[in-house]
């Protein structure tokens, strides 16, 4: 029995020795934390491609402060607890910048681990760039000085979406259908509150929460929506939960319009296909057909860089994050996270979507938000399709940055710069 312990630990020791000290010196290292194995690995890979794309561009121009940017991927297995362990690893390796964006559960866990770590070991401070985790609490009651969010949160998007919906006079009855977990519940809550405030005449005819990722057949839900007489549906569903919902709606001949968050999410448009054309809308900070030469160039450059991948340029947030990070470093002539963080506050950025700035009270990027409709690609205003499906998004409305700002409850301790 004891022999076993010894043998086991000897093997462990040997493997440790091999594993440590992999990262090379004299680069600015950005740890990329996502699920890179298991069911959501493809989503993690898309973000990684974007980060690589952004880093390549900086490196082609000679890097930042004469150093190249090095992207080091870590596998969180999309689990909050694993993410915390991975976080310890990157601290061990002396990495001071990290990026993550899929899954608010992981984001909250990381943000909390980061807070504890930075206060317990201030000499090893780490800065966290969040490119897509949209739980409002991250920039409200759970905010953290070293956490910067580049995507608009659930409430901001709902603000934009309901502003748009309020203008649509033909909407009279709205149905809410969401996944039964924190994100879906907050979409339902925000949707109901904001919509009834802006358009008291609109009737909420249904509010369904269904289990996350467990429903095979959405036909019964569609039958229920149909029975309610709704002409608009709001849904925060993502992945198969939105794809199957749209397919079932088409099968049953439901005419209502769907206002969603993630209709354009990776892997969803191919499943929806024809079924979504004209009645499927999404609210995002970017889509390929927002217009303007900058956006088109970006989409084309990405396609050129990754010709075999089916995904498209999507995460402007990663571009802005890397852009702000490098400019902050150039400005302060330092790679110290605290100095960089102070420089990033209130920084302005010119994104392909327009002007944006980092809000200093809660480190939330404020930027324009778009509502768009799933349509056939036509080479004109729907120039680019998504995932090579022949379908793309067409802009319905652009909500300006200033109209998306919401009050915040964030009160973080600001270090002295």
């Amino acid at each position, binding site marked *: 029995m004891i022999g076993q312990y010894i043998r086991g630990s000897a093997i462990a020791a040997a493997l440790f020795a091999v594993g440590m000290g992999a990262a090379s010196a004299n680069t600015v290292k950005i740890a990329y934390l996502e699920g890179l194995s298991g069911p959501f690995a493809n989503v993690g890979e898309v973000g990684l491609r974007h980060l690589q794309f952004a880093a390549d561009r900086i490196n082609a121009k000679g890097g930042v402060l004469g150093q190249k940017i090095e992207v080091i991927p870590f596998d969180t297995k999309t689990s909050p607890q694993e993410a915390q362990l991975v976080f310890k690893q990157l601290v061990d390796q002396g990495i001071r910048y990290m990026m993550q964006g899929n899954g608010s559960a992981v984001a909250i866990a990381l943000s909390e681990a980061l807070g504890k770590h930075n206060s317990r070991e201030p000499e090893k401070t780490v800065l966290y760039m969040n490119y897509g985790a949209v739980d409002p609490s991250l920039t409200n009651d759970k905010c953290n000085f070293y956490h910067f969010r580049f995507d608009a949160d659930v409430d901001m998007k709902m603000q934009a979406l309901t502003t748009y919906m309020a203008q649509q006079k033909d909407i009279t009855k709205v149905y809410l259908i969401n996944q039964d977990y924190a994100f879906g519940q907050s979409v339902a809550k925000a949707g109901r509150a904001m919509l009834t405030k802006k358009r008291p005449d609109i009737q909420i005819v249904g509010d369904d929460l269904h289990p996350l990722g467990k429903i095979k057949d959405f036909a019964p839900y569609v*039958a229920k929506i149909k029975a309610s007489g709704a002409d608009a549906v709001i849904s925060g569903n993502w992945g198969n939960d939105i*794809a199957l919902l749209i397919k079932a709606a088409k*099968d049953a*001949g439901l005419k209502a319009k769907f206002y969603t968050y993630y209709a354009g999410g990776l892997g969803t448009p191919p499943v929806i296909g024809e079924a979504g054309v004209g009645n499927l809308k999404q609210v995002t900070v970017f889509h390929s057909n927002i217009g303007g030469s900058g956006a088109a160039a970006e989409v084309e450059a990405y396609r050129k860089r990754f010709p075999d991948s089916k995904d498209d340029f999507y995460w402007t947030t990663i571009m802005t994050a890397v852009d702000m990070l490098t400019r902050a470093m150039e400005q302060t002539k330092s790679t110290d996270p605290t100095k960089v963080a102070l420089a990033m506050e209130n920084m302005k950025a010119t994104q392909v979507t327009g002007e944006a700035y980092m809000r200093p009270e809660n480190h939330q990027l404020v930027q324009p938000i778009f509502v768009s409709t799933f349509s056939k690609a036509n080479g004109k205003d729907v120039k680019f399709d998504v995932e090579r499906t022949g379908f793309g998004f067409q802009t319905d409305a652009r909500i300006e940055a200033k109209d998306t700002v919401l009050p915040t409850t964030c009160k973080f301790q600001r270090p002295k710069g």
Partner: protein
Amino acid sequence: MEFFLVTLLNSLSYGLLLFMLSSGLTLIFSMMGVLNFAHASFYMLGAYFAFQTSQAIGFWPALVVAPIAVAALGAITERYGLRTVHKYGHVAELLFTFGLAYIIEEIVHLIWGRAPVEYKIPAVLDFSAFSIFSTQYPAYRVFMMLVSVGMLIALYFALTRTRIGLIIQASLTHPDMVESLGHNVPRVFMTVFAGGAALAGLAGVIGGNAFVTEPGMAASVGTIVFVVVVFGGMGSLAGAFVASLVIGAVQTFSVGFDYSLLNLFALLGIETSADSAWYDLWKVTISQAGPVLPYILMVLMLIFRPKGLMGTREG
């Protein structure tokens, strides 16, 4: 009324699909004692094979080719996997299928990627068959039901009119008997396993495009099929059939009921507010709890009638 009729049809088509999956599992489970965790993986493989075949030569050949391919894989699994671990007992067999399910999912990730594939309903079947009041009913759903019923009839004849079918039937209720009859037990097992896999594969072919073909599809039906088998009872195909329809109906109909315990309290005149103790529990509606209902049914069934609905034996 409209909701009721549409939902009834939906529950029927879903229940029949469940039966196609659970019939194979019941046969394998009852005869070999192996609770096949990889059964839903065969369902998934059926869908992916059909996707691949239909890209090359079309949907109709896929309807035949994919189940046969899955059956071949099932036969190989039985011959080179299960038979090897058989001597270590049922736990080892079960764990073998558990590990296999794990690997099949990873391999599917590798070959077809993690995102759903574009496995589409054939154009000939992509129209609405009829309308119930204002709701259209898609033709493909009708087709699914036809295939399921056809399979049901074929299975019935295979079990009652062929020699091997009679042996299988006998061994469902008396698993020890087959051996004493002097039949080639390993071959019977292999046939049953391959046949069960083929049924699962066929379910995958017609379910994959009706719903979605992606690597998580195995996990999403896997446990529900177990529930059906346990609920219906060991060794009973009729039980599996009834259980499939019941579970299908429970899952589909529960969606329509937005009642929670709060409604009941209101009826009884008990005041509740968001601050009440256990408010989280009281406010859960039946439609929210729908997916848990099959498990609750199963647990209740096992408590009060361990044999299952129409089972002939326990354990």
